[in-house]
């Protein structure tokens, strides 16, 4: 079974971003970039499927600038076999990314596609579901457990009140939630080996995909700041303040 994993290059989760003075976006100059945390979980799940003998080949794909090759090399070091970069310097919407991934799915014909449920920059939570719509495949979003058997996959999903399990016919789309697994770190020998693994670069034009969008970001602002309050000295003082000052008890 061939598994396709999609990964995104995003600002590192430890960075507190700042809005640009002209309100055109957030300032990403000289900021640490990493693989989106949910995408790391997606790579790990694919590697485990290969280790368990369920997957035979892992292809990792990213849509983004040429520097996203760094994140693809990371995925190769973690155990992916080869990489595809769909290079685009523009900021693309989830639908455009889903269309590009659909073109890669058509080319690669994987049985399972694993993506992160959400990127921590745009916070959209759309791409996996959109790819499922475009391919017509079943979708197991927010997965906390993935079990492949025969021509189907059982996906346990994190839902608001607990967990739900669905069975999907393969090929299928899975998006990862936090508890699916704990990603490993790449070892130095594997990082060295990853440099020699194949990495193909494509373009939206070459794939014949239009990345036109119906959304336009008009401006980006800093959120209303919340100022720090006061420190209370005791539980008794806290209760008094909550009752008489904040009036919430």
């Amino acid at each position, binding site marked *: 079974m061939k598994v396709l994993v999609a990964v995104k290059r995003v600002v590192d*989760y430890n960075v507190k971003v700042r809005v640009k003075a002209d309100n055109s976006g957030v300032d990403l100059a000289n900021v640490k970039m990493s693989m989106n945390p949910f995408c790391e979980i997606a790579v790990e799940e694919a590697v485990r499927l290969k280790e368990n003998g369920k997957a035979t080949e892992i292809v990792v794909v990213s849509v983004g600038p040429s520097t996203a090759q760094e994140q693809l090399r990371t995925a190769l070091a973690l155990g992916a076999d080869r990489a595809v970069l769909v290079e685009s310097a523009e900021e693309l919407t989830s639908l455009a990314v889903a269309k590009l991934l659909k073109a890669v799915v058509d080319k690669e014909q994987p049985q399972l596609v694993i993506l992160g449920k959400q990127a921590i920059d745009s916070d959209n939570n759309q791409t996996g579901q959109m790819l499922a719509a475009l391919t*017509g495949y079943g979708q197991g979003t927010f997965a906390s457990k993935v079990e492949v058997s025969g021509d189907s996959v059982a996906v346990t999903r994190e839902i608001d009140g607990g967990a739900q399990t669905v069975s999907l016919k393969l090929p299928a789309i899975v998006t990862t939630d936090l508890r699916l697994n704990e990603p490993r770190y790449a070892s130095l020998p594997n990082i060295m080996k990853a440099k020699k693994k194949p990495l193909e670069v494509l373009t939206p034009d070459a794939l014949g995909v239009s990345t036109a969008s119906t959304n336009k970001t008009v401006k*980006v602002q*800093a*959120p209303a700041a919340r100022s*720090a309050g006061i420190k*209370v000295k005791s539980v008794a003082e806290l209760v008094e*303040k909550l009752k008489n000052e904040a009036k919430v008890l």
Partner: protein
Amino acid sequence: MTILVIAEHDNKVLAPATLNTVAAAAKIGGDIHVLVAGQGAGAVAEAAAKVAGVSKVLLADNAAYAHQLPENVAPLIAALGLEAGGSGYSHILAAATSNGKNILPRVAAQLDVDQISEIVSVESADTFKRPIYAGNAIATVQSTAAVKVITVRATGFDPVAAEGGSAAVEAVAAAHDAGTSSFVGEELAKSDRPELTAAKIVVSGGRGMQNGDNFKHLYALADKLGAAVGASRAAVDAGFVPNDMQVGQTGKIVAPQLYIAVGISGAIQHLAGMKDSKVIVAINKDEEAPIFQVADYGLVADLFEAVPELSASL
């Protein structure tokens, strides 16, 4: 302009998040229709018909929609959105719940439009505000799509009244069964406490709780206050409590009257889930913890002493 709101429900009860979503629709302006897709969901449709401001309820009652699988429900919604002759919808809205997030992007892609996720305000019929980067920036997004597909963050909109409307309920016959997915089962957490996103008071624990058993201190406090209990991602990652208790950027977004953060340091991604709370209390023994920068009332103390004392004094 007619807006379609997708009802959030479990075939029995109309979930409160639907009322916040109808409120967002009312801000956009125009007729508001509500779609109830389910099986044996007549009572939900009747409840939706009573919601203030709703002019029509569409009930798609079919075995294919019993568990609201996106493979079956998305084509239904997309077909309603596209209905020919100008009678289609200008906007399709759903609450940004796990269900809404699961289904709506699939609808948007079928309609070949970009979705706008988790709006927190309506600027005009085509322009909306939404948080990005864990709420560290607010983007204003304009849509040129013929059908605007939007999920609504419930905490951004005060709910409309659940009573007062008298909409007609109309049956939708269309049955879409893609045959690519099936429901196997679900395990829902049983709790007598209020639901996290709807609670007026939330008590949350973090890594400082040390283990899952210690959450009993928070449950005792929550029961005194009639509060829901949440957790930080650190507490969920450490296996103290289940994921459905997680408050944060990738968990639940809450904005209660009172939020009590216990043993929570205040990572960016946790603040994204609770910083719109009216009053924030932080109890942490580390006086440098970032949570104190957003707290209205901070108490630097050992939580294992302070929390039982707080419970006892209420």
